[in-house]
């Protein structure tokens, strides 16, 4: 009996080995699912929500929506964003007003946690799919997001839609009547 079981086990083992070889052969003849990256450039559609680069959309008049409030800068966990602002006289009212000078973004340190985009009360920044950024010098990874000569959209920004706040926000707090540091309020 024991002998027969031994023999049976041997054949069972061989059967299982053959099964394994069957699976690999199955995959040998299956169509391959490799996405050929440089060849499919431009053809392959990446998911719209995929985050690869922070950008600041500009409209046709070279206007952006950033008011240099600095919420994104303060919300960023590892100092990826630097908002450099300058005081400028408002052409309409003549009062000095804080406007964006440079919006610097260190791609090399960004972790794509999306706190900045979610916190931005003006939807001034968005993530895009552009992921090809490899460089030879580290410093080139620092990007200036506002285009040269661009300015804040002239129309008074409508009251930003109150997004369903998701808890990560220091920005929307501005619209809820909570105490806000004075230097942040003046931009609105």
């Amino acid at each position, binding site marked *: 009996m024991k002998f027969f079981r031994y023999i049976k086990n041997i054949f069972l083992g061989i059967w299982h080995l053959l099964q394994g070889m069957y699976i690999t052969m199955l995959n040998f003849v299956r169509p391959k699912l490799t996405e050929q990256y440089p060849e499919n450039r431009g053809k392959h559609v990446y*998911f719209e929500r995929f985050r690869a680069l922070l950008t600041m959309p500009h409209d046709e008049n070279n206007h952006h929506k950033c008011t240099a409030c600095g919420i994104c800068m303060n919300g960023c966990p590892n100092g990826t964003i630097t908002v450099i602002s300058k005081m400028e006289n408002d052409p309409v009212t003549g009062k000095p007003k804080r406007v964006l000078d440079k919006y610097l973004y260190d791609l090399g340190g960004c972790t794509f*946690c999306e706190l900045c985009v979610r916190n931005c009360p003006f939807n001034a920044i968005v993530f895009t799919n552009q992921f090809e950024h490899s460089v030879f010098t580290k410093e080139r990874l620092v990007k200036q997001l506002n285009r040269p000569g661009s300015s804040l959209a002239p129309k008074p920004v409508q009251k930003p839609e109150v997004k369903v706040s998701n*808890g*990560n*926000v220091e*920005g929307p707090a501005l619209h809820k009547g909570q105490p806000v540091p004075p230097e942040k309020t003046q931009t609105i």
Partner: protein
Amino acid sequence: MKEKLINRFDWLTEADVVMSDGRLTIAVEPAKLREIARFIKECGYDFLVDIVGIDYGDDLGTIYYIAKGSDTADTIALQTKSDNRENPVLPTICDIWEVGQVYEREVHDFFGIVFTDNPDLRRLFLRERWKGFPLRKDYDADPAINPIPDRNELFIDMDALPEMESDEDGEGRTWKMMYDDNDYIINFGPQHPAMHGVLHLRVRLDGEIVRTVDPHFGYIHRGIEKMCESYTYPQILHLTDRLDYLSGAINRHAFCLCCEKAMQIEVPQRAVVVRTIFDELTRIASHLLGWGSMCMDMGAVTAFIYGMRDREKIMDIFEETAGGRLMVNYHTIGGVAKDIHPNFRRRVKEFIPYMRKMLKEHHMLFTGNPIATGRMDGVGRLSLEKAIALGITGPSGRASGWANDLRKAAPYAAYDRVDFEQVLRSGGETFDRYVIRLHEIEQSLRIIEQLIDNIPEGPYTAQVKGVIKLPEGDYFQRVENARGQFGVHITSRGDKNPYRVKFRSPSMVLVGALKEIAPGNKVADLIMLGGSLDYVIPCIDR
């Protein structure tokens, strides 16, 4: 239990034993710690979940979380404080709960607390010559004090175990050599293809046979716990993903749950269900990778590629909804970051039958393979008692027959409304640990199947205040991660930053298990056992 304790120890007052955060919290003096710890163990609390060290300012303290092996949701917290900062000394509890040994080493490393009678009190993560104890509040992080070393330190101390004398002040260390001059010692890692990261095992070999295994951690110690103390709660969330990156979403869930519990936020049902689906998808992805890398450790590279291939389907689901492949950044405090993508349901529904079919193929390819079973048979047996004593939770613990699934024991999220089995095996051998992962994938598919058609409508996140501040107190939340129980301890002082955050890593004890089960086996088995335990090193090192 409270009455039991107060009856047994007349020096315990009602004020010392309080119920908080759903568990009994006992404050005790260091001198009485061992006494009460022994009693708690006798009452069936044989699973030491974690030891949390805290710098209270004037003194240093520890919190011991202890759970019942038979019901891992039933937890007791034991708090104690050392009397001074300069020479903090606490009695060890590592003879009561075996796993305490490595936890005490960790607390020693971070806080400098000396645990008398702990047999091996080397630094755990930092190098032996590191100056200062980083998690103390007065730690000086000046890089000039601890510059980047340009060469490896000689492992003088690593080869010697300090033998502690029971002095009160912790002085009087003598060194007991761990290895003979003639021992054949081989370093696996930190850069080694099979170490799943940067674990460093110093292995004493006798020919091909492993005699002792001495793990060294810290090659990826990033000081996350210290960083958390200066971050706001939403900012911490992007670090939890990077602990155990294979179950990032689940870790994040734990932190969110902990904050929500503290702030008493009611999470919308839609978010709860979506979170559960995400967690289970993460678990499947993690198990697929774990299965694949174990097969690769045994030499079957193709199986690994197949595992990764199926994992890509999940990555697609994640990317479409959350925008990230590995770091999904999806759970937030109060809900989820975005609503699910319109294609989400369709993709998940396509994935379930696909995965079922592929599971069959995976079983055909590897499970029955006589070479694989021959290698796994009778190797690395971990008994139930040992598993509990070492705190081995998750699939590896359940392979030994320990029912420790928190999804059953203390259902969180949507787990109380779905029907699934806790997969248990009794052998505790390598094969059990191997096959349990594939079975858990099936169960996860079942959970997803039940939930995917029942995602309730409604908001995907709760209204949360702009600046999140947790009420003062200690909070502890555990979830079932792909590797075991992942715990988050938050001590809040009411600020927008936490006072202390501690993560309980399920992987750390798994390496401890390797130490237990590897000796006596061959080198090849050591690698395979590592694969079967499926630890993730960055989660250990934090």
